[in-house]
């Protein structure tokens, strides 16, 4: 099989499936940073398969790649925790959460300037990604994958209140830390 045709097929499947596969991987694995390596492995394995055996027999490429993702995530060696992680912080009340949600929808001119400041923007991202692996996953699934918070809670096997608290508390903390 010519490698050009192979690459073209691979690229097509990649662009069609990346969103759903990354959503799956981020849900399953330890942190955003590790997800990148795992995604690379998934698509490398997919390419090797189609290079070796072709792709005419693949009826549903998304399902096929997701199955590879399940395999890769299963083989991913996370660490054995001695204690389950327990974060302790005062939960937001319902009223506070409503207020934070409303604030998130308000137009703020200064945020565009923050995004243009590459160094600051990267710091804000690193603050999210490095603080708590679960927070990074929540942010990615909610803001990039457009998942609702109750869906995220179900995927991450958490309760909705915990997901909301992690999200909103991080946003509030960042406002103070980075003067947003």
């Amino acid at each position, binding site marked *: 099989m010519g490698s050009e045709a192979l690459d073209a097929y691979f*690229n097509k499947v990649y662009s069609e499936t990346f969103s759903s596969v990354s959503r799956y991987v981020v849900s399953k694995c330890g942190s955003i940073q590790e997800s990148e390596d795992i995604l690379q492995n998934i698509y*490398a394995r997919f390419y090797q398969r189609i290079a070796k055996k072709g792709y005419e*027999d693949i009826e549903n490429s998304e*399902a096929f790649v997701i199955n590879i993702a399940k395999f890769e995530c299963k083989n991913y060696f996370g660490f*054995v925790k001695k204690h389950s992680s327990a974060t302790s912080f005062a939960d937001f009340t319902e009223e506070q959460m409503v207020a934070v949600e409303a604030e998130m929808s308000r137009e703020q001119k200064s945020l565009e300037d923050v995004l243009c400041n590459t160094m600051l*923007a*990267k710091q804000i991202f690193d603050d999210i990604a490095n603080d708590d692996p679960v927070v990074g996953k929540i*942010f990615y699934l909610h803001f990039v994958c457009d998942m609702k918070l109750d869906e995220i809670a179900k995927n991450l096997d958490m309760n909705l209140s915990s997901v909301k608290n992690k999200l909103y508390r991080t946003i509030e903390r960042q406002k103070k830390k980075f003067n947003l």
Partner: protein
Amino acid sequence: MTEKDFYRELMSRYALDPEKIRQNALKQAKKPSWQKFAADYWKPAAGVAAAVALTVSAVGYMNARSSGPDIKVDPASALSAAQRLSEAEQNYYNLQSSENRTVNMYITFREPVSCNDMVMAFSGIADVGEIEYDAVYLSSGTIRGTDEIAGYKAEHGDEKTVAAVKISTLSMYYRSIQDLSSVYLAEMGSDEINDDTFCPITVEDNDPLINDQYYVTTTAAATTAPVTTTPFSFDSEKTTSEISVPAIGESADSVSDTLKPPATSESDDPEEEYPEDDEEFEEPDETSAETQETAPETTAEIPANEITSTTYYGSDVGLLTEIYELNVSNSIETVVSGDNAVVLTKNGVYLYTLGGVIRDQNGSSAELNSPKVAFKNENTIIITGCGASGARNLISVADLLNNELHTYDVSANLGAAELGTIHYSTAQDKYFVKAISETSSFIYEVQISSETGIQFRPLIEAQAPVSVAGCKNNTLYLTTLDTVIGTKLYSFDMSTGDMAELAAFGQTMKIRRGDDFESFALISENDKYIFDANRGMLISVEQLNEDVQLISQNGLTYFRVDGLVYEIAADSSISAVFGTVGFSSASASEFRVNEITSEKVVVVRDNGGNWQ
């Protein structure tokens, strides 16, 4: 811009880079097979460490026990397999498809092919035109010249003896040639890769690491070395009774495709491992791929031993003795370290802190079947044991500094494998754990801390017995054993996954590891060597015996044998030294096990003075 838009843009920009992932996935997929397992779950150290390449300065080296010239690292002239692969990869991606110059190419096949197969494979490349065959590399030697090659082909055209070939053709066909399924590695001729230096990279079928007769016992007696040389060793004068150390240009790496980090366990048929799902995609199974569960911290049930301890103080002439009776019945082993004692029974482990007050046993015991002490130093005792399934996949860590005992179920980390030996690198503060399944042996890097528990990182999977010998910086030193080939020594770069064969001994060598798990000795009936990890050198040392102790101090290796301490200097000279060298002492603890009965363990400390 709202906060929602802000975070959407922020996360999209920095979280995952789809284009970067796509390109890396393609590069990874197209790499030669044994390198692609490198560093999947590693955070690489700064830069890529150059693989150690060893040269031998004289054929006569190692023939006798006299200390001959040492094997030297000569990075200026050596081109390791890792470097060759890297060069090939660069060429693969950088070469313009429109390039149309005539080049020399050195092509190693995945397995020996016949001349007729080779010609057929190349003729399958579209518009290949003419290919000139300049040299054919056989397991028995090299044939050069068009006429000679044609003559060999006429007579032996169907015999699968061709390991590699040198051809002249247009550079634009380089990628197509590399992409042929029979080709392992295609290399462009250069100053480093030429007729004088080229040697095929050994591929797996000729390597004992995938020998189907797995599980060669490490205590097997050395067999008579076979007369035939190891594959791709074209020095017909070299016998296997000598150590064969790859010289420049020879095959420096006869590493099996199966001696590799198992980050993505490679299957010839991935469909065996994950069935295709022709149905419409379903939401992922949420119960899959969870992180490992933790074994309960404390035991559910203490075995029927009555754990009570009494202390009384006896005296002997001029000597006060503290005596601790640990009422643990049917103890199978008791280990004392510092002022701690760990007692093992058939199905439990008990940690005691000695010295005046016997610690209450709550939180200091664990239920394991068939426990065995796998590692011990003054701070830590590690015990492996069997869980309910009967597989040895439980680890109890006695933290002697904090007087705590923690137990972990690592079955999910090991899969079907069971725990074997454990070694500790003082400098790296890492453990190296060996696990064995029916078909493979695995090496893991393990970190243990009271904050994060236990972490496993897979390093190597091999279809042959493999042992870790030492570790220096990011390099792990391993040995393999085959009853025919004997012991081989390898280095493994933990940050890049590069593997290099350092020596092949042609006989069984026993490992004597250093106290700090850096330098080590390899000893047989006839030959004795120290591998100086500080300088990456194998040194013949006459004085060694199996009781030798080794340690590194201030960048030098010291060894103690028969009560004398020697230093290996920077020029490899060996001299006796006096003074303090930090060998670990067998009698570091003041406590000792005085008696073990079916009903108790008696530990004593001789005070040697008045006790109050």
